[in-house]
């Protein structure tokens, strides 16, 4: 082994030349992320689902709500009288299953995005305060987290939605408000080490108030793990939303939801297997895509993070 190179003493003042494009931090991170094939595959799946949701009216072969009892429970690949093919078959009301899956992605992504934003912001705020101030505040907030975690999530969600009534708004609020714990714990852990760093001490010494220190100096440094948690949590929220819809406590029919389609299909399991199979595959593929992308993001940005 050769001896380590002796480091040249750094000159006192350096006017740094603009960094070449390829050396910038985020460019290198993206380059590293792209080298992970599973993460790229995950991202492609996610992009496909997002495009399907956005372009649903354009790409959907049929109206997802159009019923035709004469064409009910037709198997995948069935061709109707006008020669139009139903690639994934039709359901018990003669509605095209592919069209309903495409439109169903809208509810899944909308609830996923909105609930993750609510719980992410809530958890970020709680984590920042708990980690930065420590002591009694920290103790109180972490006990609150224990209380939240003690409840079987789905049971609490259905109890609350059962009382408040089912609506898109209620579902988003209930999932959003009760999912903050992961974010708070991860952010708190980061803040515990960030608050001991020199730039934070410097900011305090210069007279910055707590609020400013938290938002300008601590938050940006705790953002990366937060982003990883948010990505992975999106997958969990999508499963929760479809579970609620499956139990009949989600967005109500006739709006197509993946969970609701599965619940319909369960009744026809012995005669028409495709009703329950395809919506479940849609959930599986979406969640798998998000998980793979999130895993890659974690391994690239913050490999020590345990989520």
């Amino acid at each position, binding site marked *: 082994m050769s001896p380590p190179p002796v480091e040249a003493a750094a000159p006192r003042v350096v006017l740094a030349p603009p960094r070449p494009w390829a050396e910038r931090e985020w460019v290198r991170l993206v380059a590293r992320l792209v080298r992970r094939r599973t993460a790229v595959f995950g991202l492609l799946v996610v992009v496909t689902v997002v495009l399907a949701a956005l372009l649903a009216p354009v790409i959907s072969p049929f109206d997802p709500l159009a019923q035709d009892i004469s064409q009910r429970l037709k198997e995948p690949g069935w061709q109707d009288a006008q020669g139009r093919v139903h690639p994934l078959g039709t359901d018990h009301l003669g509605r095209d299953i592919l069209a309903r899956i495409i439109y169903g992605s809208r509810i899944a992504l909308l609830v996923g995005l909105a609930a993750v934003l609510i719980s992410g912001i809530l958890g970020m705020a709680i984590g920042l305060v708990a980690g930065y101030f420590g002591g009694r505040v920290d103790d109180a907030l972490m*006990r609150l987290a224990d209380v939240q975690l003690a409840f079987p999530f789905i049971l609490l969600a259905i109890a609350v939605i059962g009382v408040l009534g089912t609506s898109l708004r209620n579902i988003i609020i209930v999932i959003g408000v009760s999912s903050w714990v992961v974010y708070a714990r991860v952010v708190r852990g980061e803040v515990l080490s960030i608050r001991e760093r020199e730039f934070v001490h410097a900011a305090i010494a210069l007279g910055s108030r707590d609020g400013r220190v938290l938002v300008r100096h601590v938050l940006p440094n705790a953002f990366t793990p937060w982003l990883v948690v948010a990505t992975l949590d999106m997958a969990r929220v999508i*499963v929760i939303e479809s579970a609620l819809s499956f139990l009949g406590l989600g967005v109500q029919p006739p709006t197509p939801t993946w969970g609701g389609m599965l619940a319909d299909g369960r009744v026809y399991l012995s005669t028409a297997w495709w009703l329950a199979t395809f*919506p*479940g595959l849609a959930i599986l*593929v979406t969640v798998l895509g998000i998980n793979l992308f999130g895993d890659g993001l974690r391994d690239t940005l913050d490999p020590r993070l345990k989520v």
Partner: protein
Amino acid sequence: MKAYLLRRLLQSILVLFGVSFVVFLILHLTGDPALLLLPPDATAEDLARFRQAMGFNDPWIVQYFRFLKGAVRGDFGESLRHGEPAMHLVLERLPATFELAGAGLAIAVALAIPAGIVSAVRRNTAVDYVSTVVALLGQAMPTFWLGIMLILVFSVRLGWLPSSGRGGLIHLILPAITLGLFTTARITRLTRSGMLEVLGQDYIRTARAKGVGEPPVVWKHGLRNASIPIVTIVGIEMGTLLGGSVITETIFAWPGVGRLSVQAIFNRDYPVVQAAVFLLASTFVIVNFLVDVVYTYLDPRIRFR
């Protein structure tokens, strides 16, 4: 160690108080519990009389302490539908839920820990890839879909296993697999990464260098040191299993607490809902306290803290 356990015990009791408060709140979410508890066709006089009789006109703090007094004695009022004490109904169903959750956990631990260890030891071989792909799919698969697909294949098509109800071992197979797969996937991935981390440590190299054979290196030096996060996740997964039982029991018509609470929510039978939520949440808190007790045996460093 005593101080540590005592502190954890006090924390757990504090959390149980928090749990009771949230359960109390469920009934007061809409502002008027009388409207929730009485049938929709109740007259204004009925409502007023009911509020007075149940004490819903008292300050909320008084109501909460009254609720708490009942809760510690297991008294959540009578089921509106069955006319029995709500707690009695829930306790009756509890063994079925424990049976299912226990079977799910047994499957998960029995499959996941060996799979995770083999994956880590035979890293980047076919065994590792297969177990990783299965774990990824298991984590992405919604419980209710897995249950339905298992029923489709093994009950509807092959006719080998019953699709609903509780009975002998044969009734337990499909629900237990359904409930346990997600947990299996999670523990597999955690065991693999934990073992990989530990097997890269200096003391493992030292053990190998002084001539310790591969099996004791993996099982004694490796697994023991990787066991703390595994025990933690097993404790947390108890919560996942108790919560997952809500869906699994609904699919397989399993007569447990999960199915009872879903039915109670649809029947607007709130005393039963409160009793069930309270009991499941308390179980989780108690299990996690016990997990902490186990820690102190696994990791002497905690004992001397």
